[in-house]
């Protein structure tokens, strides 16, 4: 049996309460006070606690600083990796486009694959860089008023060639009369780009990809964006996990996706910065619907004022 020795000082109410509590929990309380108590251990319980709290606070601060340093390191490394890769892609494109002499079709194909792989690597580095940056320092939103329809169109344009390559049927529906949103446009492009990118990756050829923007039923001062696909779906037990950093559901999904496992974590961070929510409804084999909410101008102004 473990013996817990406590040296309680004085007879104030807190000490009595603690004695009672310990006795109730089955501890043997060894009372010692005055001259028979070992000198160095006679310490008030409050002092002990205060010192522990101080220690813990110091540790937390140290860990936070380390975390910032690590994120800074990650930023630097990603940045340094990106520069030579950019050069490789550019040389590749120069060769592909025959600027240094015509290529045979097979040579062109090989270079095309090389460029695609480099671009994939670049986008992963970009994702790590974004993540590290969001961690290294507080992100400040730069909200403006804009139409969600513009962002939906813009993100489609960025992904149009991939959507066409996989012969996905793409439908976008933005209800007319929808209020403008009050948000950081770049961040919203990033979030929607990530969701659409995932939908493309996880949907087999000839599938369906739908994007819809509408008023949020729970709170009509907010807007809701839905990205729906007919892809492989996600087991409900993984719905929370996929929004966490470095999460990949399993190896087979990772192969389809080539991701860093940071995309949804970043998306969630950006949505939450706007005061919004992001969530998923999905079942294995039944496609996925990702939702996120954004404040309308009216709701955003209130948030800003609060």
């Amino acid at each position, binding site marked *: 049996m473990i013996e817990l020795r406590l040296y309680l000082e004085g007879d104030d109410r807190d000490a009595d309460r603690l004695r009672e509590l310990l006795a109730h929990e089955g501890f043997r309380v060894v009372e010692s006070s005055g001259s028979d108590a070992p000198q160095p251990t006679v310490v008030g319980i409050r002092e002990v606690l205060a010192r522990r709290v101080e220690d813990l606070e110091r540790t937390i601060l140290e860990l936070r600083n380390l975390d910032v340093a690590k994120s800074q390191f990650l930023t630097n490394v990603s940045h340094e990796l*990106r*520069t*030579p*890769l*950019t*050069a490789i*892609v*550019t*040389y590749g*494109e*120069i060769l592909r*486009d025959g*600027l*240094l002499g015509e290529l045979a079709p097979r040579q062109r194909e090989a270079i095309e694959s090389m460029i695609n792989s480099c*671009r994939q690597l*670049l986008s992963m580095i*970009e994702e790590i*860089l*974004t993540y590290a*940056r969001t961690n290294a320092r507080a992100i400040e939103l*730069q909200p403006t008023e804009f139409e969600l329809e513009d962002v939906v169109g813009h993100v489609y344009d960025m992904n149009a060639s991939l959507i066409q390559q996989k012969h996905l049927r793409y439908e976008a529906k933005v209800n007319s009369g929808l209020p403008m949103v009050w948000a950081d446009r*770049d961040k919203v*492009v*990033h979030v929607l780009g990530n969701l659409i990118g995932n939908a493309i990756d996880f949907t087999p050829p000839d599938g369906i990809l739908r994007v819809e923007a509408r008023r949020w039923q729970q709170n009509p001062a907010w807007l809701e964006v839905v990205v729906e696909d007919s892809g492989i779906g996600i087991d409900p037990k993984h719905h929370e996990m996929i929004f966490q950093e470095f999460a990949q559901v399993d190896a087979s999904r990772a192969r389809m996706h080539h991701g860093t496992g940071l995309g949804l974590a970043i998306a969630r961070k950006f949505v939450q910065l706007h005061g919004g929510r992001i969530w998923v409804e999905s079942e294995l084999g039944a496609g996925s619907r990702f939702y996120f909410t954004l404040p309308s101008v009216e709701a955003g102004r209130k948030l800003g004022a609060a």
Partner: protein
Amino acid sequence: MSGEGANLPLILLVEDNEAIRNAFAILLRESGYRVIEVASGSAAIETSATDRPDLILLDLGLPDVGGLEVARALRSREETRETPIVALTGRALETDAEACYAAGCTGYLTKPIDTEQLLRVLPTYLNPQE
């Protein structure tokens, strides 16, 4: 474009990374432009005053003077007040478009630069009326 040499548009390419600079120089020369290459902001400001380029491609991540500062300096000088400046930036989250325009840039492209896109937009900056 009939005549060689002097008739071709002159582009000042400001990029500190040698591999990237060389790659863009090849791309531009092979596509019918004359190119002057410099690796720093201070060299960009000097060269643009003497060589009077038709367009400046400006990397924003320069080691000496920040790219946006270079853009502002170029805009404040008589010789380059009207010269189109196209900024080459990292992704959107790094440098926002508004800061680019506020510093006097005519346009911007995000890295990795799509070479086809670059060649497509250059003429629109060089001959804005067309």
